[in-house]
C-alpha cells in the first residue's frame, strides 16, 4: 500500500481548488508571511549565498559517493547500538515497521512529521493492521482528524482555516465540555497540547522522520518547533526513524552547513527551536529514552535518479521555499498536485518517483517565472528540470491532442519569422480593439484563462518590434 496518485487529474483538481472559498482564504493569508520572513532572515546573514553554493557542491559530492556514505552511516548506527533496515520499496518499509510494532505489542504509535511515511502510506497501512498511528505535529494532527494529507512540506495544514480547526476539534474531542470557548488560536493550541500529552505517554512506539543522517556518527537529525518529535522519540519503548537514502551527509560539520540554510529558508528562523541529534538507544546509565533505535531507509526509485537528468532533484532538503514563492501553488494549494510532494519540487520529484505517465501533468503547472530556483537553498534548477519532463512527456505522446496540435501550430509560425511577426501584431491589434487599454474579461477560445482572471489587453507594440526599435536607437 502506498499513497494513491491523483496527479493525472491536476487540471480538475486545480479547478476545484480555485472554486474552494476556504482554501482561497487560507492561501491568501499564508503567501506574504513566508516570503517576508525568509527575506528578513537571509538579509541578516551575509554568508547566505556562499552557504548555498557550498551546500549545492556538498550535495553533489554526497550523491556521487552515496553508496560509500551509506555504508559508513550503517556501520556507525550499528556501532552505537542501533539497527538499520533497507527498504527498496514503500511496501517493504511498511512491512518492516509493522514487524517492529507487532514484536513490541504496540497498540498506539506516536508519529513525528515525516513526508517519507506519507510516501509509503504508513498510517493507512498500520490502521489496516490494527495499530493506531497518532500524528503529533499540530498541523499533521489537524489534517489527520480531517482525513486529509499534508498540503505543504512544513505547514501541512496550510489549507485549513481557524474556524475549520475549531469545528474539527469539537467533532473529535467529544469528551470535552461543548460550551468551551475556542475562539482564540491559543485555546486551540492548548487543547491540542493537552489531548496529545496522554498519547505521547501511552504510545509504545515513536516514529519520526529525519532531516539528515550523519555518516560520521550514525546519528539521525530532526528539526521541529513544537518539540513533538522529541516527545515522540523519548517517551516510547522504541524509536523508529523512517527516512530516505539521499538524506545522508558526511559529518557533523556538513550537517551544520545545511542547518544554517534550512530554517532560514523555510520559516525565516536562524534555527528551528529544536534540532535533535539521535544516536542509538538508551545507554546503560540513561534514566530516559527509547530502549530500541531503528532506522528504516527507503529508496523507492531514488537510486534510479542518480547519474541521470534528474539527479539534481536529490539535493532537495525539503524546506518548502519553492512552493512558498510559486504563483501556481499560491493559486491552487498543495492538494491539487495529487500526490505527496506539492509545488515546484513536487512537480519534478513526483514523475521521478511515480512515473511520467502518472506525474507528467505536474511539470506543466508552472509559469516558468524562475522564483523557485532563485530561492532554493541548494540551487536546484527547478525550471530546467520541469522542462526536461515536458520534453519527455511530449516525446512519449502523453499530452492531450489539443496541446500537441497547438504546439505544432505555434511551431509552424515560430519557424517563419515574417509570418510570426505579422500574426502577432495582427493578434495584438485585435485584442486592443476588444479590450481598449484595460483588461479583457472574456476571450474566445481562452475561457480556461479568463474564467479565473482577466487577460491584460496589449498596451503597445509587440516585444519584437520594440526590441528592434531599441536596437536601432542604440
Amino acid at each position: 500500500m502506498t499513497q494513491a496518485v491523483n496527479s493525472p487529474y491536476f487540471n480538475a483538481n486545480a479547478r476545484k481548488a480555485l472554486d474552494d472559498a476556504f482554501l482561497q482564504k487560507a492561501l491568501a493569508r499564508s503567501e506574504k508571511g513566508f516570503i517576508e520572513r525568509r527575506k528578513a532572515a537571509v538579509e541578516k546573514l551575509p554568508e547566505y549565498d556562499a552557504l548555498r553554493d557550498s551546500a549545492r557542491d556538498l550535495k553533489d559530492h554526497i550523491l556521487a559517493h552515496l553508496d560509500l556514505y551509506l555504508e559508513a552511516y550503517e556501520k556507525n548506527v550499528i556501532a552505537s547500538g542501533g539497527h538499520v533496515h533497507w527498504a527498496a520499496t514503500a511496501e517493504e518499509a511498511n512491512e518492516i515497521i509493522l514487524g517492529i510494532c507487532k514484536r513490541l505489542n504496540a497498540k498506539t504509535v506516536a508519529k513525528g512529521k515525516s513526508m517519507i511515511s506519507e510516501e509509503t502510506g504508513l498510517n493507512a497501512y498500520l490502521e489496516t493492521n490494527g495499530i493506531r498511528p497518532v500524528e503529533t505535529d499540530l498541523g499533521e494532527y489537524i489534517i489527520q482528524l480531517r482525513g486529509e494529507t499534508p498540503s505543504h512540506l512544513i505547514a501541512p495544514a496550510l489549507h485549513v482555516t481557524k474556524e475549520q480547526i475549531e469545528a474539527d476539534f469539537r467533532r473529535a474531542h467529544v469528551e470535552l465540555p461543548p460550551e468551551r470557548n475556542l475562539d482564540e488560536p491559543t485555546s486551540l493550541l492548548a487543547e491540542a497540547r493537552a489531548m496529545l500529552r496522554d498519547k505521547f505517554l501511552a504510545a509504545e512506539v515513536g516514529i519520526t522522520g529525519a532531516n539528515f543522517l550523519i555518516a560520521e556518527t550514525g546519528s539521525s537529525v530532526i528539526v521541529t518547533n513544537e518539540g513533538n518529535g522529541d516527545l515522540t522519540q523519548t517517551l516510547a519503548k522504541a524509536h523508529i526513524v523512517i527516512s530516505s537514502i539521499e538524506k545522508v551527509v558526511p559529518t557533523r560539520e556538513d550537517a551544520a552547513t545545511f542547518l544554517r540554510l534550512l530554517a532560514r529558508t523555510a520559516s525565516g528562523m536562524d534555527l528551528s527551536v529544536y534540532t535533535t541529534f539521535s544516536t542509538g538507544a538508551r545507554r546503560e546509565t540513561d534514566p530516559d529514552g527509547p530502549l530500541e533505535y531503528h532506522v528504516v531507509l527507503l529508496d523507492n526509485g531514488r537510486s534510479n535518479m542518480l547519474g541521470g537528468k534528474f539527479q539534481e532533484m536529490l539535493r532537495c532538503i525539503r524546506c518548502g521555499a519553492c512552493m512558498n514563492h510559486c504563483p501556481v501553488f499560491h493559486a491552487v494549494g498543495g492538494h491539487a498536485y495529487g500526490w505527496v510532494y506539492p509545488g515546484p519540487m513536487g512537480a519534478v520529484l513526483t514523475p521521478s518517483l511515480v512515473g511520467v505517465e502518472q506525474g507528467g501533468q505536474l511539470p506543466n503547472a508552472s509559469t516558468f517565472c524562475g522564483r523557485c530556483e532563485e530561492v532554493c537553498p541548494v540551487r536546484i534548477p527547478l525550471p530546467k528540470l520541469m522542462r526536461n519532463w515536458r520534453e519527455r512527456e511530449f516525446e512519449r505522446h502523453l499530452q492531450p491532442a489539443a496541446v500537441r496540435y497547438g504546439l505544432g501550430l505555434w511551431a509552424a509560425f515560430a519557424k517563419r519569422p515574417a509570418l510570426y511577426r505579422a500574426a502577432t501584431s495582427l493578434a495584438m491589434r485585435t485584442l486592443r480593439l476588444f479590450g481598449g487599454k484595460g483588461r479583457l474579461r472574456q476571450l474566445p477560445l481562452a475561457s480556461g484563462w479568463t474564467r479565473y482572471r482577466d487577460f491584460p489587453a496589449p498596451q503597445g507594440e509587440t516585444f519584437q518590434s520594440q526590441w528592434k526599435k531599441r536596437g536601432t536607437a542604440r
Partner: protein
Amino acid sequence: MTGRDAIFATIKKSLRVAGDDRARREIVAARLEKHPRGIIPARGQKPKAERTELFRQMVEHAKASIVMLDSKDDVPAAVAAYLRSKNLPQSIRHGDDERLSLIPWAKERTLEVTKGASDGAQLASVSYSFAGVAESGTLVMLSGADNPTTLNFLPDHHLVVVDERDIAGDYETIWDRLRERFGANAMPRVVNWISGPSRSGDIEQTHLLGAHGPRSLHVLVVRNS
C-alpha cells in the same frame, strides 16, 4: 536479493561505479576523518564579552528570557525569583549533574528540589547546559543521568544554566568539544540544540508559544564558574 543489495546495486549502476573504486573510497574516508569545516558566519566570531552579548540578544530574539549572574551562588535566588514571577510553586527538578549539586539551593528555604527524570508531573525543571552557541542563541544539551532529556521537554518551564566560558561562537566549536569528550565518532544518545521555547505556526501561520515542549525557556548565564 535483499532490499539492501538491491539498493546498493542500483546506486552503483546509476553512478557507473566500476570494479576498482579505491579513489572514491579514499575521498570519502578522508572527509569522514578530517571533517573539514564549511562556511562559518562572521556573526559569532567575536571576543568573549561581545560573544556573550550576542548570545544574550539571540536568546531573546528566539523568545526566551535570560539573566546574567556573577556566580553559581546567585542561581537559587534567580530561580526562585523566576518561579515567583510566573506564579509557580517553589519547586524544581534536576538531574545528577555535579555542577547542579554544588549549587547552594538551601539558600532558598522554600524552594523544593527533587532529582531525576520527568514523568510529566513537574512544572519547572533546571538543566545544566553543555554549551551555548552565540550565532543563534542556542543551548546544547546532552542526554544522560546528569541532565535527563525528559527535563528538556515535559515541564512547562525549562530553566537552563550555562557557564559563560562554555558559550561558543559557532556549532563547529561544539563538535570539536564533543569529539574531545566522547571520541572521534561517538555521540551521547541525544544532543539537543534548543533555541527558544516550544512553538507552532500551524494555525494560520501565526507563531504561538507553548506547543508540546516548554511554554517558556529561561536561561541563566554564570559569569564566574
